[in-house]
């Protein structure tokens, strides 16, 4: 058992199947203990954190914004889930000895070099577009891709198909080998 936990890498089939079990059990547990069932999802947390930060500067503006009102700017189950993802990944990478403070991803460097500022700018712009898009779509690869498709939701599969279409087309342009 110990040997399994300290292994650096698990088969994606095994790790994924365990996430499937986790997702179903999380719904059963939350249904029994909390007022509402909880399905895996992460992106609304970014809205809530943005709201919590903005509140420090413009409390009235946040209180009056329709979207912040609908999503409720507070610490909730999902925000703790996101914090847990950080802790779980940290724990797993320390046990498996794969924790690595890399400056720039190696595949990124193959195309755009090791300049940290260039990578930081691209990550900021990419993150901005991604979160805006994901909120418009109403969920991320966790909320739509995992939880949505698991429930056979039409919205989940449509979103996932367009996530992949947008991603694959863009990657084909951004990471194109120059001859």
């Amino acid at each position: 058992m110990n040997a399994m936990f300290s292994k650096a890498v698990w088969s994606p089939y095994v790790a994924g199947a365990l996430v499937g079990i986790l997702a179903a059990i999380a719904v059963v547990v939350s249904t029994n203990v909390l007022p509402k069932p909880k399905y895996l999802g992460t992106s609304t947390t970014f809205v809530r954190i943005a709201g919590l930060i903005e509140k420090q500067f413009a409390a009235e503006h946040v209180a009056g914004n329709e979207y912040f009102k609908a999503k409720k700017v507070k610490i909730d189950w999902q925000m703790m889930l996101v914090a847990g993802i950080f802790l779980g990944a940290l724990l797993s990478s320390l046990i498996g000895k794969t924790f690595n403070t890399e400056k720039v991803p190696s595949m990124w460097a193959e195309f755009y070099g090791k300049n940290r500022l260039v990578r930081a700018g691209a990550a900021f712009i990419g993150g901005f577009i991604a979160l805006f898009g994901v909120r418009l779509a109403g969920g991320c690869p966790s909320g739509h891709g995992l939880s949505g498709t698991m429930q056979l939701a039409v919205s989940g599969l449509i979103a996932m198909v367009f996530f992949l279409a947008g991603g694959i087309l863009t990657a084909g342009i951004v990471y194109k080998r120059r001859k």
Partner: protein
Amino acid sequence: MELFLGVCTGILFGFLLQKGQVLRFEKQVGFLRLKDMTIIKFMLSAVLVGMVGIYLFKDLGIISLKIKATHIGAQTLGGLLFGIGWAIFGYCPGTAIGALGEGRWHVLWGVVGMLAGAAAYAEAYPFLKTTVLSWGSYGKITFAELLHVNHWLIITVFAFIITGLFWLFEKKRI
């Protein structure tokens, strides 16, 4: 209790994402360049097991579903936008936080970008609500409801498609 349950679920989720190598930039972008199917193997395995579990518990009356409404305009446009950002950044919201956990500090800039994107969306929401979000709304529907068939039939079809894809990935060694 709500917060405690959330963090426990998250730790297990993050642990499995890390062990499955889903948090690596090379795996995310490698998939979008169609060179490495690791993240899609992980995701489809979770869907395969999860859909059986969820509907089993639902049929037993233990849980209820929580379906997101279908808005064709928002899911296609928003989906494409997300895809563009995903390819440039190299992470989705959940995996970005996980990647920070395994030491990839450069992800922090992307996280700041995501928070700015979330704030911008909150400002744009009143406009989007009356435009894109109102195009092609069909409510909270599942494929079983849409096609008027038993959900286990859909699950069987999905299971065949997913295992077929797995077979293809292994055959092509990607």
